[in-house]
């Protein structure tokens, strides 16, 4: 398998900066704060070594935590997502299986597949994040409200980014 280190590094840095400098400061309707950096983990090749996936997730989460004063909440949630992704991928595998080195994307898999894949992953990530943030069961409605609102917001932004950067088939295969 060939990993395009340059493309990965660019995505990594760009998503961290976008999250820390812009998205963390958004609060829509008092509920929704988008987090789209999980897109980095979501668009790793399907046969990425799992240990590498976990380490990258940890590194990225910790970097965002450092800039957002959140201890290790982003790291925990992203590692959880990275651990769950192969399971989601197996559940959603097409009949003929994935191509080796295939990158899950809106362009390759289509809107329906990508929507289920992304919202499921985002839900795991966001729910874990808000549970850790509140750390109390007496605010369940707050946790669920923020999770659902933020998943919707993050997903729409993620679609937008997919459309802008990955819709060109040549780029998608880079």
């Amino acid at each position, binding site marked *: 398998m060939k990993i395009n280190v340059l493309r990965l590094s660019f995505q990594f840095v760009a998503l961290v900066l976008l999250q820390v400098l812009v998205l*963390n*400061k*958004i*609060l829509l309707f*008092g*509920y929704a*704060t988008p987090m789209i950096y999980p897109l980095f983990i979501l668009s790793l090749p399907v046969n990425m070594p*799992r*240990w590498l996936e*976990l*380490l990258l*997730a*940890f590194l990225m*989460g*910790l970097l965002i*935590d*450092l*800039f*957002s*004063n*959140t*201890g*290790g*909440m982003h*790291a*925990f949630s992203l*590692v*959880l997502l990275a*651990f769950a992704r192969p399971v989601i991928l197996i559940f959603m595998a097409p009949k003929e299986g994935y191509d080796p080195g295939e990158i899950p994307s809106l362009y390759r898999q289509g809107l329906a597949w990508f929507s289920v894949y992304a919202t499921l992953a985002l839900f795991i990530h966001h729910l874990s994040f*808000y549970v*850790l*943030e*509140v*750390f109390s069961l007496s*605010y369940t409605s*707050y946790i669920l409200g923020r999770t659902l609102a933020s998943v919707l917001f993050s997903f729409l932004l993620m679609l937008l980014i997919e459309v802008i950067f990955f819709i060109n088939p040549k780029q998608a295969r880079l």
Partner: protein
Amino acid sequence: MSVRSIIRFIVRYHVFFLFLILESLSLYFIYEQKTFHRQKMLAVTGDMSGRIQEIYSDVTSYLVLGAVNDSLMAEMARLKTKALQAGDGLPEPDFRSDTLDSLIYRYIPARVIRSDYTAFNNYIVIDKGSLDSIHPGMGVTSNYGVVGIVVSSSPHFSRIMSLLHHDIQISARLAKNGQLASLVWEGHHPQRAALRYLTYPSPVAVGDTIVTAGSSTYFPGGELLGTVEKMELEPGADFYKITVRLSTPFDRLHYVYLIDNALQKEQETLEEGL
């Protein structure tokens, strides 16, 4: 079980072990950050993340110079008006209970390095610490109004529990008649808080000013908290249900004042005995 089989076991489930290790590490960091203000803070880590954030705020602070100037001019205008009024011998329009306040309270300016307002519990980091005689328990205001309370300081930085925190409760009063109440943040909106325990009947109306009561050791009386935005009285209830629009814009907070209360220890010692 031989050593070889243990090693084989670990190699076989290495992904799961790595997952456990990384998650435990994350949880440890979270724990350390959440108990930050209760324990004696690790000066090194606190200073380090403070410095990183200071660099970031140095870069972005140029973008807001205009807004900062405007707010300083507004503050100057307010103080000038006050000085004129004092010169005319007119009573001050707020609830400064005691002229001795000016001797008891000392204001120290500081720059905000980061201000959170989208989290469940929000904190603010400023660029002054224990070397500048900042200590936990100091009240924090701005030229807009009350900001929060200092909860920890490293040598060069301090962390403030902002009004937007579920553990904070400020003793407040209605500026109009001095009636006491209590201000808490119930989450959701960074500009709205709830005023509790304002007893019926009261002349409270939408638009009324809410200020600090001055009974705690954190703030002198009369510091601006906000204005009444919405109020209702359920039939048969003893208290009003009031929503306050906070006067401090936590998303545009660049400079704050820390309040050093010379009599804080004395009052706290006395009240502990109560």
